[in-house]
């Protein structure tokens, strides 16, 4: 016997300690971190902010775009994981401050001050929620205003999950108008229009500056009883992060009233219809020379490195923690079962939800993503380690005892090798699961292939989605192959299928 799992494990632990640190680059000067939510307009405005800061030439910019749902982005700003991002006054008042009475900028800021935040510099347009309906259907049913829906309450409607849940969403709208829609489904925003075009739904929620209003030839229903509040796009930022850069601050203030509603629709259309990048759209608005950038191997390479880091660091942590836990579980009766049940419950939390839970505690980026992946990888490893030791034929243990082996020899020479096929199977399951789940890490700014997929989904750009999805699938296959090979190396020959 020359190969023992434990010796290999020792080497893995050493590797882990080397691998876990390189993301913390020496911070000479902390860049300004610009965030964005996960829809075109937020990306474009964030890119405008980023380029404005870069053009001022005082400080570098780190783009942390596509941070997912509103809650994550706001939480990131509060904790300082990002310094600035574009937000809408209505969202700030109702979602963050939970106070609909805050109508003016001054009123907002008096509240935000206590949080060390500020919202100002309106871009110059109002992107409010609106309801829209296909033109043909609108003419047929004679619907022009939201009140007109009162006689067509069985209309098939599609709304985002956020609109269905938020206080100023569908529920409040229904109360305001005395409306009771019978056929409502919730879906991703980017799927709404496709479903409408496919004739699966008739009524959708739109943003008033959305490029797709024009593309799909929609009629925006008049808000005749003035339900929807003002959603003026503003800069939402931490004054403390920007105060050291007066020229930058000055340049940002100049963005005030620089984009009209019509211009914003045009910018959105540039990205979504003309397939321009966010950077190109932003450069167009800022009246700069446009740099052309398409498919980049370098970008995929960088995403690959990020993805591998996410997968392997979390996997190694899960191995280092999971193996001892699984072994310990076989030595105790109740605690072991309780432990495995507990980790099993963790596994049932949807991955996106788990990521969101971790954001308030760990911020956004690499750390919470690794922690989430670590938690997911834990169950297969702990359970299979437990089973591996548990299923050893008791007669073999007895046989070992008659040879008077020391406890350590017993573990190393008998128990561990006999349990190794099951343990390695658990590690293999975790590795493959992690490759897939790691794509979700993009929602909290941890990069990886998911960043390509998420951006692609937002832009409805199949090309970009595939640039993330295909390497991710290939990686899953490679990791499967790698673990098969490792199993061959580590599992004693006598326990292998075709020995």
């Amino acid at each position, binding site marked *: *016997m020359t190969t023992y799992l434990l010796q290999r494990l020792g080497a893995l632990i050493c590797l882990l300690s080397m691998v876990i640190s390189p993301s913390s680059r020496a911070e000479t000067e902390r860049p300004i971190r610009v965030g964005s939510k996960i829809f075109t307009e937020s990306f474009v405005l964030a890119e405008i902010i980023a380029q404005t800061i870069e053009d001022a030439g005082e400080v570098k910019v780190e783009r942390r775009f596509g941070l997912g749902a509103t809650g994550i982005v706001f939480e990131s700003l509060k904790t300082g994981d990002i310094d600035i991002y574009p937000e809408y006054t209505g969202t700030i008042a109702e979602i963050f401050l939970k106070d609909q009475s805050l109508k003016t900028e001054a009123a907002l800021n008096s509240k935000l001050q206590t949080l060390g935040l500020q919202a100002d510099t309106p871009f110059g347009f109002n992107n409010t929620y609106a309801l829209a309906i296909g033109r043909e259907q609108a003419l047929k049913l004679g619907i022009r205003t939201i009140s007109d829906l009162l006689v067509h309450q069985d209309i098939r409607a599609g709304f985002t999950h956020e609109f269905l849940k938020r206080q100023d969403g569908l529920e409040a709208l229904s109360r305001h108008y005395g409306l009771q829609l019978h056929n409502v489904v919730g879906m991703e925003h980017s799927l709404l229009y496709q479903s409408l075009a496919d004739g699966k739904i008739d009524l959708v929620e739109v943003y008033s500056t959305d490029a797709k209003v024009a593309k799909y030839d929609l009629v925006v229903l008049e808000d005749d009883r003035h339900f929807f509040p003002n959603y003026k796009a503003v800069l939402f930022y931490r004054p403390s992060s920007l105060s050291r850069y007066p020229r930058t601050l000055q340049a940002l203030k100049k963005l005030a009233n620089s984009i009209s509603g019509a211009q914003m629709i045009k910018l959105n259309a540039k990205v979504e219809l003309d397939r321009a990048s966010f950077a190109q759209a932003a450069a167009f608005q800022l009246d700069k020379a446009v740099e052309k950038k398409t498919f980049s191997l370098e970008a995929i390479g960088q995403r690959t490195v990020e993805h591998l880091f996410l997968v392997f660091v979390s996997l190694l942590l899960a191995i280092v923690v999971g193996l001892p836990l699984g072994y310990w579980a076989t030595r105790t009766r109740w605690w072991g079962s309780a432990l495995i049940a507990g980790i099993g419950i963790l596994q049932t939390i949807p991955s996106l939800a788990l990521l969101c839970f971790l954001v308030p505690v760990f911020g956004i980026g690499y750390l919470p993503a690794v922690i989430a992946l670590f938690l997911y990888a834990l169950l297969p490893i702990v359970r299979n380690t437990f089973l591996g030791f548990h299923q050893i034929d008791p*007669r*073999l243990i*007895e046989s070992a005892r008659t040879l008077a082996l020391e406890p350590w020899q017993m573990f190393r020479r008998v128990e561990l090798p006999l349990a190794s096929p099951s343990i390695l199977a658990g590690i293999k399951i975790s590795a493959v699961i992690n490759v897939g789940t790691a794509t979700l890490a993009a929602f909290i700014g941890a990069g990886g292939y998911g960043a390509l997929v998420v951006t692609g989904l937002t832009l409805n750009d199949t090309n970009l989605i595939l640039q993330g999805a295909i390497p991710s699938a290939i990686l899953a296959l490679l990791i499967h192959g790698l673990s098969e090979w490792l199993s061959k190396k580590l599992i004693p020959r*006598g*326990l292998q299928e075709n020995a």
Partner: protein
Amino acid sequence: MIRFDQVSMNYGNREVLKAVSVNLQEGQTHVIWGTSGSGKTSFLRLLSGLMRPTSGSIFLKDQNINELSQTQLAQRIGYVIQEGGLFPHLTARENLELATLTRKWSKLETAKRIEELAALVQIDPKDLERFAKQLSGGQRQRVALIRALMLDPQIILLDEPLGALDPLVRADLQKELKRIFNTLKKTVVLVTHDIGEGAFFGHSITLFHQGRLVQHGDFNAFVRQPKNEFVSRFVSAQAPTPELLEAFR
């Protein structure tokens, strides 16, 4: 050599051995008989130190085994558990080497001992490079026997050594084992529920029933003077039927 003095053994709240007293002579082969659950395997486990008696004492050459550590017991007693208990992840040779792990033998010493015993039990040294599942049932038992003999113990315990073998292999290995026992002149305790094996091997036979020692003596005594109804039933259970005897006539 081996003396049980009023030994009782509880397993959970079940009494598996009840006040057993018996004396087994040195250098002889002793057969332990009994039906399933009669306590015969428990008898071996107590003797090997895997379990300790609830009450009573066990002596090896007048030394109470409670005073011996597991390592000291492993020195004196070689135990072949049911179906051999070879480790599937190790080759036969590696299984044998494991037996000398606590003794810190040199590679050469170990190899020499293996060679010596392979010759004794007549197994091809090439077969020792195979894994347990690549060996036949008879070969597995031979390897398991070598493993038990590695440290040259005074006592060999075998639990149903021929149980899982087909009749032809079984008959061959029976003769083999008897030859080996005679060569080694060790004290052997062999558990079986086979009457023929008892008659074939046993200088003495001990019959257990429901945890109690029912009769101890030689085969003749079991046939001529059975202690009770159970003993005669047990002894005659495997006797050839009249039809079989007729067929051989």
